[in-house]
């Protein structure tokens, strides 16, 4: 147990890495688009965890909100809308994954129990150290915001136009063919 606690961050990293890469491989390998989409979702969540491990907490939140929450929902909507089941039927494909899921769940529980046990023994001293920005100690989000709105103001504004373009594009492309206007 002590070994696990001493190398806890590495253990968590390995778990998250396998989770992300497993999801990535799943996207390439799984036949049904819905399964691939869920696999991608798993990958995104794994990557978000890796971001947290690398002290990028704000980015992890953005990853979950935008990627997992926004993009994946969009993917699933379109997959359902287009009804891509016509591509191929492989209903029994997920069966072999069940033992893998069980093992994954056990690993996760082991890590979570270790964390709780270690926390019970010794409270965290400095779990998320503050970053120093412009002479002040601030949290990750504030630090990112500080840099984003000062050094990266111009790309920020350009991206806002880009998002407008994406909205217009989605509408233009998704329009029904009959909606045309004459001069």
């Amino acid at each position, binding site marked *: 147990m002590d070994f696990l606690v001493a190398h806890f*961050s*590495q253990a968590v*990293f390995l778990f998250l*890495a396998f989770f992300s*890469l497993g999801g*990535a491989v799943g*996207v*390439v390998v799984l036949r049904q*688009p819905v399964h*691939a*989409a869920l696999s*991608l979702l798993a*990958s*995104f969540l794994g*990557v978000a965890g*890796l*971001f947290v491990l*690398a*002290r*990028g907490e*704000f*980015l992890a939140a*953005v*990853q979950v909100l*935008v*990627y997992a929450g*926004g*993009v994946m929902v*969009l*993917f699933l909507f*379109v*997959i359902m*809308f*287009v009804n*891509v089941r*016509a*591509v191929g039927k492989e209903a029994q494909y997920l069966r072999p994954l069940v033992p893998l899921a069980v093992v994954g769940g056990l690993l996760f529980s082991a890590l979570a129990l270790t964390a709780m046990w270690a926390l019970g023994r010794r409270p965290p001293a400095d779990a998320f150290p503050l*970053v120093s920005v412009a002479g002040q100690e601030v949290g*990750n989000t504030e*630090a*990112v915001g500080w*840099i*984003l709105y000062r*050094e*990266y103001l111009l*790309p*920020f504004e350009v*991206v806002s136009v*880009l*998002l407008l*373009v*994406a*909205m217009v*594009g*989605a509408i*233009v*492309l*998704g329009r*029904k*063919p009959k909606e045309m206007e004459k001069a």
Partner: protein
Amino acid sequence: MIPLSWYLVVSVLMLACGLVGLLVRRNFITVLMSVELILNAANLNFVAFARQLGDLTGQVFPVFVITIAAAEAAIGLGIIVQLSRLKTTVALDAVNEMRG
């Protein structure tokens, strides 16, 4: 501590998955998903280097990458919807009438 190289290995493997998926899969939606994998791999790089260098730029830029990826996904899915109205399948092979 987690060595930098671990992050880089994960990101390279994810990049490989994305590239393979993009080149091999015939379903447009899965191709789109592979592109997202590539972008995720790059983001992982950025964050890992940010931690290594102690520079927050590597945490700010991925915000842009994620935003642009979301916009790209929206447009890609719009194209898929368009395609699905014309044809009954979104297999990429069917979209290859023009001679190479």
